[in-house]
């Protein structure tokens, strides 16, 4: 069963936040309820309003509806082709908290902030 990022129902697109790590866009409530579908293990957003508010942000620009990430060039360009389908931000301002960044380094994961897409 493939997972899909929560898409807000029509007219309920308030309080959208973007994950600072994978740039997926969900409502704050969805983040809190089910976490980030891509990086929940790292971010542990589920159930924690604090985590949600620190690891996601409202400061994002542009929304992508990612329907077929495997074939999509947009997904490749955004480096979200391995993630679930769902809504993604084109650009997310801000960085994840420092402790999380350190954790990523420990795991040998190279953190690429989402606020500057260009190299």
């Amino acid at each position, binding site marked *: *069963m493939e*997972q*899909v990022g929560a*898409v*807000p129902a*029509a007219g309920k*697109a308030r309080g959208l936040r973007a994950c*600072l*790590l*994978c740039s997926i866009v969900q409502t704050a409530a969805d983040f809190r309820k089910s*976490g*980030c*579908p*891509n*990086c*929940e*293990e*790292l971010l542990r957003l589920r159930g924690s309003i604090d985590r949600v*508010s*620190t690891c996601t*942000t*409202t*400061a994002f*620009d*542009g*929304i*992508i*509806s*990612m*329907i*077929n*990430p495997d*074939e*999509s*060039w*947009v*997904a*490749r*360009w*955004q*480096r979200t082709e*391995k*993630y*679930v*389908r*769902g*809504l993604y931000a*084109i*650009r997310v*301002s*801000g*960085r994840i908290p420092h402790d999380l960044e350190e954790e*990523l380094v420990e795991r040998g*994961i*190279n*953190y*690429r902030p989402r606020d500057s*897409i*260009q*190299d």
Partner: protein
Amino acid sequence: MSSNAAPTRARNVDEDYDDDTILQRERARLKASSGAGGEAEDEEDGEFDGEDVEEEEDEEDDDEEEEDEEDGRRPKKRAKANPFIDVEAEVEDDDGDEEDEEGLAGEARDFIDETEDAAESAAARRAHLDHQRLERRERAMLDEEAAVIADKIRERHRQQTTRYTGDMDQVPQRLLMPSVNDPSLWQVRVRPGRERDIVFSLIRKARDLEYTNHPLDIMSAFERSSLPGMIYVEARSAAHVRAAVNGLVGVFVSSPINLVPIEEMASLLRIKKKEIHIEPGSWVRIRRGRYQGDLAQVVDVFDNGERYVIKYIPRIDVRPQDDDRALGTNKTGGKKRTRNTLINTVQGRPPQRFFNAEEIAKVHGNRSINRTQKRTYNFQGDEYENGYCIKDYKPSQLALEDVQPTLEEITKFSGPSASEDNVSNRMDLNVIREAAQRMATSVLQPGDNVEVFEGQQTGVYGILQSIQGEDVFIKPTLKDMDDVIEVSAKSVRKRFQTGEHVKVMSGKNIDETGLVVTVEGNNVTFLSDTNQQEITVFAKDLRTAAEVGTSNNMVGNYGLHDFVSLDQTTVGVIFSTGRDTFRVLDQYGNVHTVQPHQIAMRRDSKRTIGLDHERQQFKAGDNMVEVEGASRSGVVLHIYSFSAFLHNRTIKENGGVFVTQCHNLSRPDAMRRGAGVRGPNGTFNPHAPNLNAMSVGGPTPENRGDRRLIGALVTIVLGGYKGYDGTIKDVNGTSFRVEIQSTRKVITIAQDSLRRKINGTLKKLDEPIEFGDRDWRNGAGSSGPRNGGWGGGGGQTPSGGRYGAGGRTPGWGASSGRTPNPYADGGKTPAWSSSSKTPNPYATDGGKTPAWSSSSKTPNPYAADGAKTPAWNTSSRTPNPYGGGASGGDAWNSSARTPNPYAQNGGRTPATGGSGGWGASASNGDSFGGTSPAYTPSGGGWSGSRETDSGWAATPAVSAPTPWGAPTPAPYSAPTPGGYSAPTPAPYNAPTPAMYGAPTPGPMGAPTPYSAPTPGQWGAAPTPGPGAGAAEDRNDMLLGAKDIVVKVVPKQTASGPEEWRGGVAEGSTGRIISTLSTETSFSSTASIMILTSSEASIIGTERTIPLEYLEAIKPERGNRAYVLDGEYKGQIAEIDFIDREDAFCKFPSGVTDQIPSRVVAKLYEE
């Protein structure tokens, strides 16, 4: 391969029987037998791939052997499923056969190090067996509980959401650029504001349709807030996109889906939004509420910039509370509420004041304030520190950009803490300084004239050469200083001098321009160009500029020289625009300063015509001169009723715009030639005393449709509006704008769908109806002939629609049936009439008969005897406007009323000398197309006219006894653009006013030629005007000449020289490239390349000029010359000697002869 072997063998068997073949057969058989096994194997597994046959055969042989030996292979294979055993290792072991009796664990033993003892390995084997059993049981159990499995899997996946792998592949972005194999991006237009919803809808739709028969074939869709009104969809084809967006609310389905070029795809996803960096200390403004617009400073930033702690000066109501509050009455409740509602508005809010606990305690009571920590108070839920209110705000509540705190604000802001909080105070000033410095460099540009006003170099001024960071390099313009100096940008200011013309670049006076009056330090005062007021601005906001007035002459929807209504009775022309005001000169000469909203509407006077003091028509764009008064001249901008607005750059007041009465105007040439001479426009109109006529639709050469129909009551007979009545509001070709009477709706509808409603009967629009009403009474029916009628031919003739006759259709000429005479048989030539599709007012009966002469038998409208030729249609059955004397609208009509000279003269007088008028137009390439033998298609009949330069004057036409009937009626075709132009005002006046009328001040040109009861005027005609003959000779001679140098001269006419007004100034010289003989009565023309002229712009251009206006330049001694006439005509000679009378020419043949000097022309030398 083995399959190949079989046929080979078969062939050998069939055909070859010698020893060799037997040997071969043996060999083949051997081969075949070895291959047989392989073949059999092939048939079994069907996957034989033909490579490495030998190897595979070996392997397969082994397999066979094993299978032959025993069937214990199956358990062995099952053992492969054992997850703890490395299967590969087992395959290498060839002696597994021996351990078959050990059953399943045999391989396990092999795998285990052989050095271990048997007991250990046995234990391991047992353990393994146990494991296997357990696993089998588990599997069975799991099989039974599928639901449990599903749950478990789900659970496991939930645990495994470690999808974030960071920068997985470290691929640089540029390698991710799209390639042709990637899906394309398609731009879809959507309703602005709906972009995001549509993107959401797309993913929902994709999810819903995922497992249906028609899943969406799009990969992704995105919107960008910076690109409103469009979304981008990633898909492989536009059809997929269309299918995806189909049915979504807000998608503009009709607009095309555009492919984004592959090179632009990446940039769509690069958001180059300006990053606003907000940090503690930054200035922001509060957007809404009581503190709207107030300056605030960021104290702290939380949550990645989603929450700011800011401090600002509070606005606390410290007015004494209502006294009656103490009384505890309820009345005050309402009052208080009123005030409290006001308190949060910009108008009603209290002034900014630092928090003063004591003061507030006085008003609100001691208990209202909670002292929290040191120097911190809580009052009404807000926290106050050092007099500031400290509060959390969301970014959306704050204006983060373009804060630009003013000095006052910052001084005020730093007020109370100046003593106690020095640190923050200093920081404040730093912020300002930085801003000022940024400003300093941003307003300076290389090339600016600058001056150093502080520091060591004070007083130095020069040209700014370059800017580097915060330093600027100045090249001093002082005498002694040559070196470029480097100073800080903030020490430099722009330098202006009195008298310079400057423009304001920023601030509230932006775009004002003016002359610098005084310069005081940083302040520059200049006198505004637009409203003559002194304006003082900072030098940094100025730059020198040449332009006058605001940069764009538009304010709102109105621009310079627009014709506007101020109120119902006042109209005016905008002659200057300010920043947000206009100055308007009204029709009474008063100047109003108005703002855009005071302008009722813009008017259009494009089609308005006025009548000048000679009752000649003029219109906007014409050059006119005042007859009386200041004799100001100018270009007509607009005409309104009796007033005309003119513009002349050289007039200082009112921006060069002045207003005058129409009848006080005259054409400049008419002025010079004096009264009694007709204006060039030929709109001679003796019967248009009705001045109201002036504003009737003017002459528009374009085929615009019959504007006279505007206002007509029509019924729609076709289409969805069938049955509706309406009024024609506008005409454009054959489509009409009709206002439906019942709904007041204006629709565009084709002519076919409309019928005029006249006295209850419906008539087609192009059906002739009596226009007796407004059109013809209004002077000259000027608007009439525009379409169909006179201009009807326009469609076919290259002459641009003027007088149809123009190019191809021989206009009037006509008398002989041979020529496609429009009048003769209008059916063929659309000139005047009828066949044209446009509503032709003149076309009378179905368009077959030309309007002018109803009888096609007598094509000569002028021919006299009324019996045969209804000359002017008096006898015509057709409701010819011209024929209808009653209308009195124009010359033609008048002729009908008056004892018609033509009629009187009977057949003898080919009255139409006037046709010269038409002819003339032919000669001027402009309106009639010079090439068209408009006038004399009838073969020589009209010809000879060429000889007459001045219309009637030159031609003995009148006296000719039978000009029309005669096969060669020489006389009539006077080429002179004479009188006749009058009747057709519309086509004529337009672009080439010069053409008509002007050249022939002949009798026809006289104001009332036709109505003249006495043929006296005609009598005058036969005498050729002075000089006409000479001119004629000249023209003739020039025909065929090439490469000779000519001069543009006035034409000789009976009434004196007539200047060429075709755009080439008199005195210009040119070289004849070619001449064109019309072989008719009309002027031949020459194409000349302008060599010299007073107008530089036309030099080098090619112009077509009638020969009458050209004069060959006399060669000088030694020049090569072209002989224009005589026995040497066409030859080129060298001039040995030349004087006024004679020239001695040396011809190439060696002959030297004396010929008249007037027949030699200078040849153009490179």
